[in-house]
């Protein structure tokens, strides 16, 4: 029984958590059905997905990517061009483009990723930002395709005005579930182990025969493809995109902030971060948007997170719980067997070797 449990990747607790998560996602837009509320939900779910997708590369592999806005924008423009120029039309059909856009972005990004992944740490962060601005500049200048700074309009979907946001919300929610699913598969697979090894000590991982190049590339393209999918739905939702918003440096940073806040090493951390920061962000932007003071609010939040919760909410909370549990258990143990608290490994008794 226990052996069977250990062998199975999906523990019962995990399955229950996944089911609860999907149930909550499904009922949220019915519980909060005002337009502004559903709008807030769309953005919060989108950011939860972006933060989770970023975490594949930034958290599991420890590569501090700060340019995921590039892939988001690629997805957005692919959708605008697909739904507008190529005439996928309005209604639900553009949603069918989303998986294609994710796949296409993953393929297009692969050669760039190979080059970027030759650098590490700060150099990688700087290069990833550079790529974002390069793509943004391209979007400004390839006017025939992107409309340049005038932007591109997408067809307005003929959805019922009373529940206009709902299809977009569910598209985002499905993408979020897919993203979390991908993260879970990666975490519980050899790929996840290899990525964590890359994060901790890439050179030694190579020396142990881990195909570091392959696993990093996989994490990168998965992360970029999923990010593009969110960009595609976003573009259709706001229905009018310009390079400055589609390729938004802030977007990359906010997703990173959320992952940091929630806990980079965990599955649910980025989502927790998005739930905490997402609504706050909208509120700040609404209250202080004109003066751009909300940017300062972000910076302050980031500093607070790094100062108080360097590992994020989820790891800190679980460590606190662990400590409480251990303290409780050791109190119980000390009552029973006062002499047994082994910390150092017990030297092997004679007889062997």
């Amino acid at each position, binding site marked *: 029984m226990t052996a069977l449990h250990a062998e199975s990747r999906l523990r019962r607790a995990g399955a229950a958590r996944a089911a609860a998560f999907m149930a909550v996602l499904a009922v949220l837009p019915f519980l909060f059905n005002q337009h502004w509320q559903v709008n807030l939900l769309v953005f919060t779910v989108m950011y939860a997905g972006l933060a989770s997708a970023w975490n594949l590369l930034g958290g599991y592999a420890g590569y501090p990517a700060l340019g995921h806005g590039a892939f988001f924008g690629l997805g957005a423009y692919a959708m605008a061009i697909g739904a507008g120029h190529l005439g996928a039309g309005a209604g639900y059909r553009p949603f069918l483009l989303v998986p294609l856009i994710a796949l296409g972005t993953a393929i297009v990004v692969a050669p760039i990723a190979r080059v970027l992944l030759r650098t590490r740490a700060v150099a990688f962060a700087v290069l990833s930002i550079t790529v974002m601005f390069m793509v943004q500049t391209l979007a400004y200048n390839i006017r025939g395709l992107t409309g340049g700074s005038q932007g591109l309009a997408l067809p307005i979907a003929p959805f019922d005005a009373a529940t206009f946001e709902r299809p977009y919300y569910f598209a985002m929610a499905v993408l979020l579930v897919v993203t979390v699913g991908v993260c879970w598969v990666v975490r519980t*697979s050899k790929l996840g182990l290899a990525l*964590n*090894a890359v994060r901790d000590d890439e050179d030694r991982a190579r020396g142990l025969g881990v195909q570091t190049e392959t696993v990093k590339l996989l994490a990168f393209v998965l992360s970029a493809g999923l990010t593009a999918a969110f960009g595609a739905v976003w573009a259709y939702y706001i229905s009018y995109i310009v390079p400055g918003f589609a390729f938004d440096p802030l977007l990359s940073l906010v997703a990173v902030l959320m992952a940091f806040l929630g806990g980079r090493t965990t599955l649910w951390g980025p989502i927790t971060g998005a739930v905490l920061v997402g609504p706050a962000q909208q509120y700040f932007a609404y209250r202080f948007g004109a003066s751009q003071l909300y940017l300062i609010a972000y910076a302050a939040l980031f500093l607070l997170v790094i100062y108080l919760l360097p590992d994020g909410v989820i790891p800190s909370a679980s460590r606190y719980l662990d400590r409480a549990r251990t303290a409780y258990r050791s109190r119980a143990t000390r009552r029973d067997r006062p002499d047994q608290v082994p910390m150092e490994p017990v030297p092997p008794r004679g007889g062997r070797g």
Partner: protein
Amino acid sequence: MSALLSVAGLTKSFGGVRALDDCGFEVAEGAVGALIGPNGSGKTTAFNVITGYQAADSGSLSFRGRVVRRPDPCRLQRLGLARTFQQPRVFPGLSVLENVVLGRPQHWHALLGRRVPGTDRRRAEALLEEFGLAAHADRPAARLSYGQRRLLEFASVLMADPALILLDEPTAGVNPVMVETMERHIRRRHDEGVTFLIVEHEMRFVMRLCDPVIVLDRGRPIACAAPSDVQNDPRVLDAYLGE
């Protein structure tokens, strides 16, 4: 016995310092060789160059009878060459068990398989048991002591069944009981046919365990002989004690 590893003419400079200067030696299959020498004589650099962590300026390397043109840690590992580091390197964020499991070479199609497959787990657990680390299996490696990390690093290297293991100061910072454990493990693997090359400062350990002993001085081997002969070699005494 044939040479499992042979290097010739290795040269590596850091700025004006020649860490390796026309360095060449051989390690026979089934030997437990030692690489000793005063501080700064190029022992660790030799290891780094042999395992591909640093590129040599010139020289050649052959392992298992084939010439390795551009040594690369990943490829050499697949050929059966493993190493440990002077400062033990473990993956601090991974559990102790996962650290060992990583030592098992993977194929790309196994990447989507389980993080820790059952067979790997059982083997890793057996190794941890041997090294007295079983109680820590599920803890992050960051919580281990320095000596325990050294043992863990050694254990993880064994997962790949290497033909040759380069150990960089295996006893430094390890308590005496663990040194014995280490020695026992080296002997046991040696009996199973694994070849060793060991950089070590602890001379009693070297004299007990190793043959031949290769002595490096200023990046160049000055002696290669049985431990008792090396001890009395005037060039070696000169290198250690100065002119």
